[in-house]
């Protein structure tokens, strides 16, 4: 991606902009399912100088998971005015002609995503309780969002099949992408099928990757929730299970590196989230470790087959043994 490509694109999207220039184009590390690029643009509109900060999310040649850019764009659009902090999306280009692959453009919000810094740095110690509470409140808001507004959202046939639907989906992905036998994940799938949780009262919007590291924050708290590419309709406790796994404690004993699990669940329930049944939470915690491992199995296949040269995908393969140990601890 080059600045002159983006400038040409913006000139087409903003025909009234004069003297348009693009600067500071930089790819943001991470984002293993879609490339994330940041850039600044300035132009003159009816004699007035304008400066804007943008983000481009572009499909990669290969990724950790097959995700749907149009769904992500639809979601961001629907979230406007919902009270769920998220960047405003501007344009979606499914044919991706200007930048080689499909992409969408959104505004760049203030803040950082660095979960490890948030979890460990004394500089953020004062903000951690505030961000933990906001994280719980925003999650409750996500789970109350009207999924009827999202036409492309993947959904199970009924609340009763929500958990099994997810189990079967990820089992299929494992069978399709695993390059070697996965006995620990087979043990886990057997356990999951025998411990399906009671169905949720209704299908909710599940973010699918709601963890520290996938929201922007600054000293005022959470400024935007990002990375909606695994969003689907399902059991809201799935999101609570995902954010509770050991990997997202970032080397601390705190959920998300922020607060105790009990405290998070209490704040989430008080904010209007679903009632969290401990057995259901354990199911979704086991499931989340399995899902996480399968995401990396897909990434491993991409680098081993030569479909991707992203070193991040190669490194993530080595996260799986830790996940296997955690799964065995949970189901043992």
């Amino acid at each position, binding site marked *: 991606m080059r600045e002159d490509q983006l400038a040409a694109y913006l000139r087409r999207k903003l025909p009234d902009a004069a003297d348009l220039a693009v600067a500071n184009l*930089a*790819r*943001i*590390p*991470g984002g293993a399912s879609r490339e994330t690029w940041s850039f600044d643009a300035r132009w003159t509109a009816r004699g007035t100088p304008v400066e804007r900060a943008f983000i481009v999310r572009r499909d990669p040649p290969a990724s950790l998971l097959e995700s749907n850019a149009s769904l992500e764009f639809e979601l961001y659009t629907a979230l406007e005015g919902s009270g769920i902090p998220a960047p405003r999306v501007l344009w979606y280009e499914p044919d991706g002609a200007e930048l080689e692959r499909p992409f969408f453009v959104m505004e760049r919000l203030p803040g950082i995503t660095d979960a*490890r810094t948030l979890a460990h740095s004394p500089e953020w110690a004062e903000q951690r309780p505030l961000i933990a509470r906001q994280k719980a409140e925003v999650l409750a808001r996500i789970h109350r969002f009207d999924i009827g507004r999202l036409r492309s959202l993947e959904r199970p046939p009924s609340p009763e099949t929500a958990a099994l639907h997810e189990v079967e989906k990820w089992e299929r992905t494992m069978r399709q992408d695993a390059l*070697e*036998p*996965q*006995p*620990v994940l*087979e*043990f886990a*799938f*057997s*356990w999951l099928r*025998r411990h399906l949780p009671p169905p949720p009262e209704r299908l909710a919007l599940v973010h699918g990757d709601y963890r520290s590291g996938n929201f922007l924050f600054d000293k005022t708290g959470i400024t935007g929730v990002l990375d909606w590419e695994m969003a689907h309709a399902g059991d809201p406790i799935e999101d609570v299970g995902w954010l509770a796994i050991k*990997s997202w404690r*970032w*080397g601390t004993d705190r959920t998300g590196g922020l607060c105790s699990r009990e405290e998070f669940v209490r704040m989430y329930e008080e904010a209007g989230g679903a009632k969290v049944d401990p057995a259901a939470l354990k199911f979704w915690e086991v499931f989340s470790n399995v899902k996480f491992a399968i995401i990396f199995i897909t990434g491993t296949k991409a680098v081993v087959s030569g479909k991707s040269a*992203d*070193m*991040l995908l*190669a*490194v*993530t393969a*080595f*996260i799986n*043994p*830790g996940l*296997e*140990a955690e799964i*065995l*601890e949970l*189901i*043992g």
Partner: protein
Amino acid sequence: MRPYPEEVARIIQAGITAHFAPELRSTYAQAQLAFCALLFMVLQRDFDGIAEDLVRSNRELRALLGEADAALAHVAGDDAAAARASIAALPAPAADVRLSSLRAEYDALRDAFAKLAPLLEPAADDARLAPLREVRARAFAWFAADAKRRSVPVLG
């Protein structure tokens, strides 16, 4: 013959760090290089011991499958009989110490455990499968210890 392959990996890593890293300006490229460094570290850590690890793992997995076979003899049902037949059909131990041979054996043994999962995992609380409880516990402990040995603290 020096340098050994693991030394070659360390030399390449040192060269990249000395000559390429200082030239990198973008945060994204620096992150990719840091991931490369981690991969080189894994390569150096695993290279010397990989054949020995596979030989030991194959021996221990085969012994555990032997225990599973003995326990399955006390489990009624066609699924238990089919599992025993599957264990009996396992390939013989690798005839040489090529990594490809040892890995093929390792994958066959792990696949046997994967196929046993529907019997082994529920044994903890299914009365019919009670004879498998002890081998379930031992297999889980083996796979957990193996996972911890292979683990790399990527997320901290």
